[in-house]
């Protein structure tokens, strides 16, 4: 138990959130991470629509998509839905260690 965690007397009842959900970096749950081949990607944005965590963002200024790995939990739905098979799921551990 770290000291920054509050006692039962200090927290709001019933678990009402005292900070925004964006403060919880849930991306560290993942085992596999999506990796995209830009050459195969047609920017159809199917993955953006299907991502249950809103972790794939469309960047109009770049005319491209971007993965937000802080929130991507590695579910693989994007890879499954990609019509051109531009996304593959890779073990995060292997990618990080490389």
């Amino acid at each position: 138990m770290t000291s920054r965690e509050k006692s039962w007397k200090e927290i709001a009842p019933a678990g009402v959130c005292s900070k925004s959900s964006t403060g919880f970096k849930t991306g560290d749950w993942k085992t596999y991470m999506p990796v995209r081949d830009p050459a195969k990607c047609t920017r159809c944005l199917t993955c953006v629509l299907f991502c249950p965590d809103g972790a794939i963002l469309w960047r109009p200024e770049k005319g491209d998509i971007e993965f937000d790995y802080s929130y991507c939990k590695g579910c693989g739905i994007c890879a499954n839905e990609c019509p051109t098979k531009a996304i593959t799921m890779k073990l995060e551990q292997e990618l990080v260690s490389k």
Partner: protein
Amino acid sequence: MKSTAKQEVLALSGDEAVAYAAKQSDVDVVAAYPITPQTIIVEKFSEYVANGEVQTEFICTESEHSALTACLAASATGARTFTASASAGLALMHEMLFVTSGSRAPVVMAIANRALSAPLNIHGDQSDSMAERDSGWIQIYVENAQEAYDSVIQAFRIAEDLQVLLPVIVGLDGFTLSHTLENVKAFSDDVVQRFVGTRQLASVLTHEGKSVPFRLDPENPMTMGPIALPNYYFEFKRQQEEAMKNALAVIQRVNSEFAEVSGRSYGNGLVDAYCLEDAEVAVLCVGSTAGTLKTVVDALRQEGVKAGLLRLRTFRPLPVEEIRSALANVKAVAVMDKSMSFGGNGGAVFHEVRHVLYDAEAHPFVVNYIYGLGGRDTSPRELRGIYEDLQRILKAQCVEMIVQYLGLRE
């Protein structure tokens, strides 16, 4: 003492008394599903809605699980919320009972206590709500239709108190109370509405650091019912325990404030003693059996037996100190349980009362009688037999049978 409010005597069954109290308590939302012997409550209330006698949003749900879910959601918006159930209906709510108390939603629910299947039985015992004793709900059990009316009104004040914020069950014995017509003194609507007042809301800090009312509100969005992982879940449970402790004082306060308006009180709101001051032998019971026990105690007192009665009105939170001091001078106590705790060596009330008396200076003999299951009638003669057993225990200074079954064919 101030003069009490004007009251009118109505002929009401226990269920009707509950519905009438809910009608007068300015309830915003009722979501319910009918089940014997609670049906009359829901029927009566829907009649009030159909006749335009109340402004309540009435939701007919497809199950009790949904009924309590709807109540929880309504309560989360700040609405005053009421429901009623019994037996299998309450059992179907089981999951949502914990979600409601854990969400600190002050829902009030009347339970017309009924046996649980199998075998199927629609009659009265307290197995249904006793099985929910650890669900985080305050539990108040009443003795008669008058108390059912009074307790539903009080329940809103108790549940919605900001030191409590817990849901409340008001238990009335199925059929014995739910379907029996009694004279009930009722207030006019304005007196009840003044007593219950408007629901107040606690303040909480949002993620933006703003202090806002604790309710779902599009203007001040907040997350309710999030996940709590091992690093916080425990702390929330401890908060609920504190709220239960606070409820002990609030129930007593509401009981005495209600007495000022009505001229009626139920002991201190937690326990209700009868002829207990100098009693040597006493019975502790929950619910309507106390009515019969009083006539038995009266008869025994006429014969010179120092008999007494303690009715446990509030079962959750358990009034530990109050039970202990009420039974401080009693030499032998029989605890009555209208439900089974299979394999538990006695019923739930017995376990708890015995646990309370462990720390008493003078340990009385404490025995248990399981009775009335599935609506089995309990006669004054049988109840008298309990006092006779207690006298025998005192004479012999030992207990032969700790747990007995009253009115069971051996």
